[in-house]
């Protein structure tokens, strides 16, 4: 690991920037994600900052089962993020499609479109579980310098 890599990784562990994206969810998980930012849960004490554009984000936090309408946009957003980048699937729908698995306008979860690093189940996922999942991701970051390139296929 070069010095630059170490600094970058250190900065990322200390202050990951996240982008929140809803792919057709019922909003319950989105509200719990935002609740994680509010004083009671206060995810900002981990240095986690909500960012508005994919270009500045390290972590894409996704809710929802991915509807047909939103699928392309999800892919674009992922493509716009610079490496190394990570995807967190929040809620049962994001993990597998949840109760909507099999519905005609739904693609059955985030990993049917882009690779997922962390799955946080729940319906909705509890804010404490969301923080737990993100912290686990930070620990993975600590363990690896760069995320290996995804398998092409």
């Amino acid at each position, binding site marked *: 690991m070069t010095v630059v890599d170490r600094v970058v990784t250190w900065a990322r562990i200390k202050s990951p920037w996240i982008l929140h994206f809803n792919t057709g969810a019922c909003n319950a998980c989105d509200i719990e994600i935002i609740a994680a930012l509010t004083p009671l849960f206060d995810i900002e004490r981990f240095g986690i900052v909500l960012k508005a554009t994919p270009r500045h984000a390290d972590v894409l936090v996704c809710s929802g089962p991915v*509807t*047909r*309408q939103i699928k392309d946009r999800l892919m674009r957003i992922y493509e716009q993020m610079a490496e190394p980048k990570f995807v967190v699937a929040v809620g049962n729908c994001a993990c*597998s*499609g949840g109760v909507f*698995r*099999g*519905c*005609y*306008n739904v*693609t*059955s*979860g985030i*990993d*049917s479109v*882009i*690779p*997922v690093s962390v799955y946080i189940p729940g319906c909705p996922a509890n804010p404490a579980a969301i923080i737990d999942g993100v912290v686990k991701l930070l620990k993975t970051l600590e363990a690896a310098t760069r995320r290996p390139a*995804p*398998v092409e296929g």
Partner: protein
Amino acid sequence: MSEQETIRTELIAKFPFLADKVRSPRPRRLWAEVPSEKIVEVFDHAVRKMGFSILCTITGLDQGASLGAIYHLARESGVTLNLATSVPKEKPVLATVTAHFPAADAYERELVDLFGFEVQGLPPGSRYPLPDDWPQGQHPLRKDWNVAMLEGHKPPGEMNHA
């Protein structure tokens, strides 16, 4: 006489062909089966002359050889009048009600997208609720449609991993 009984009597008096087609199973609920050639007239009368100023929604139904549409109307007093009609599946044509209810186009577009109705007089606008790339001629709420007909759709039981 209860309010719904009064309404029922009035409707039948005005439209004798509704004689045995209007029922009231409980307070604040009325159901009427209206032949398709009369639905515009009955609807118009209910809205403009009987105070049914609220259109809650329009429900589409696949009835086999025909497609059904139920207009769920309501009044300030809380009484709802559900006007049900049917049209042949090979030519499922309805007239728009947007002249009475400008916001009804959303409900009518659902009928078009999900059942394949043709709603005459529907103002131009984007489709709803299906995406632009939805295959032509596939109407998901018809009974003979199922999700396996959608190309590229992965059936449940197959988890996709990166």
